């Protein structure tokens, strides 16, 4: 015995089960050896809800902790349960996301150090990254649990849009940050193409699979950038004001098509 006892506030937290895991464990340890404190606990509570204590303990072991991305979504204001639904998509987890980030970082590095093809590489990669991540966040082929998901009451369309917004919220600031290091007068001019490509993928996935649409868009973009590089010696013409207006028009038109055809998305297709 050390002469130390649970103070009033700690005892109240222990009884009300609002203490932290560490404090609770410390209190438990002390109570095992201290009869006076046990008596105070007995006096403070009629019956300790052992089931609740057990559930809390099991939660600590079984409930998976939120990922960094899930925590970010919660901070951004998304309710906890929806943050988890968005974050569990394979596109936001592990190897895939690391790979995309690495490709993007290498492209930015090449442009930043003034590599001959560095800017071309960055312009080729940056605008298509968001649409590829969006597509992989809801492509049925990348979702092994699609069948049981499909017959739940949660609206598939809402899930797709939430994941799309999450991708944009995650990818755009990252690429914007990398854009600061790119030696060009228009470091953020690829932003509108990126948003436009996401809208094109959403619209196109009412006909074909999202991943197929994203790959087609990426290849087309790569072709355009490559052609400009070969003919004009620089791909930045694609980011000039007139082209930007074109990307805006494509984005708006694609999103309208998506809204009109939303029930024909691949996941909903059986019931169209």
């Amino acid at each position: 015995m050390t002469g130390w006892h649970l103070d009033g506030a700690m005892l109240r937290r222990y009884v009300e089960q609002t203490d932290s895991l560490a404090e609770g464990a410390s209190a438990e340890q002390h109570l095992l050896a201290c009869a006076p404190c046990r008596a105070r606990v007995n006096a403070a509570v009629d019956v300790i809800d052992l089931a609740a204590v057990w559930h809390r303990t099991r939660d600590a072991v079984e409930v998976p902790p939120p990922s960094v991305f899930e925590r970010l979504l919660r901070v951004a204001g998304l309710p906890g349960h929806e943050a988890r639904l968005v974050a569990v998509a394979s596109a936001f987890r592990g190897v895939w996301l690391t790979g995309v980030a690495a490709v993007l970082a290498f492209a930015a590095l090449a442009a930043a150090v003034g590599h001959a093809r560095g800017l071309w590489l960055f312009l080729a990669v940056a605008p298509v990254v968001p649409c590829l991540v969006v597509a992989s966040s809801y492509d049925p082929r990348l979702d092994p649990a699609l069948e049981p998901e499909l017959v739940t009451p949660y609206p598939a369309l809402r899930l797709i849009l939430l994941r799309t917004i999450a991708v944009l919220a995650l990818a755009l600031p990252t690429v914007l940050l990398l854009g600061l290091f790119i030696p060009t007068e228009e470091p953020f001019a690829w932003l509108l193409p990126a948003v436009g490509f996401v809208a094109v993928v959403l619209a196109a996935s009412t006909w074909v699979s999202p991943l197929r649409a994203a790959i087609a868009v990426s290849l087309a973009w790569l072709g355009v950038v490559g052609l400009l590089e070969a003919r004009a010696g620089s791909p930045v013409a694609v980011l000039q004001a007139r082209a930007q207006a074109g990307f805006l028009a494509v984005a708006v038109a694609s999103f309208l098509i998506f809204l009109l055809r939303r029930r024909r998305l691949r996941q909903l297709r059986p019931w169209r």
Partner: protein
Amino acid sequence: MVTASISLRGAGRAFGATRALADVDLDLKPGVTGLLGPNGAGKTTLLRLLATALPPTQGQVSVLEMDPQVPAERTSIRRQLGYQPQEIGFPRGFTAFAFVDYIALLKEWTQPAARHAEVRRVLDLVGLSDLGAKRVRAMSGGQRRRIALAQALLGSPPVLILDEPTTGVDPEQRVTLRTVLAEIARTSIVVLSTHQTEDVAALCERVIVLDRGRVRYDGPVTDLTGQAAGRVWLADEPDPNASVSWRTGTGRYRNVGTRVRDDAEQVEPSLEDAYLLLRAGSAENEPAAEVAS
């Protein structure tokens, strides 16, 4: 109290030019109904129609007095439905608890404490309460089937659609699962497909035999078994005229469909005998149709 029900009227499903299911008329009430049939008979297609995973291309389907073709009613059906697909994948890195918790979120269990308690309840029902924190990819096939069943049991739904729930599950667990399903079926409609006739015999009051997309038998299990009464014989030799004949563990031959020799011993038929007899009859009488899975 309104009794839960499912009805199909002339229901069918085609995939392009291939008809997987045709002209199915069924009424289902609380209890366990077993679906038997060979591979490609249309069992999975029928279960997917009932589970609202697939719309019919012919006829009408009504689940709990609602029409799954109407989006709002389809959502309402899904709130009262548990479905275990034949094949189910698990996202990489998921534990058993995390997977069932994820499906619970999609089933609108938004309150964490209640959701976690429900996830534990269903994992306990399938005998996986101690493995909640284990990664699914490190589990055996039978354990994965039980996780798939657990997610279907969330919320004790009045309609439970199970596609081969006992495949790969060990005998002890199968007995446990039968007990669980029998209890659920006191108030819920449970429809399960299986290749295990002993599961149907032990669990189901009613059996539906599908073959080439059509219903070949629909009735009590005992009546189907009764159709083989007096037509199953044990003999020292196989009968070339029998509908089905195989060597048993004792070295004698079980002949179904006819009596071959005077020394043959008549035995009690099993559901498997009756099913094989029915299948043999279908094969003789019916031309093959253009039917897939």
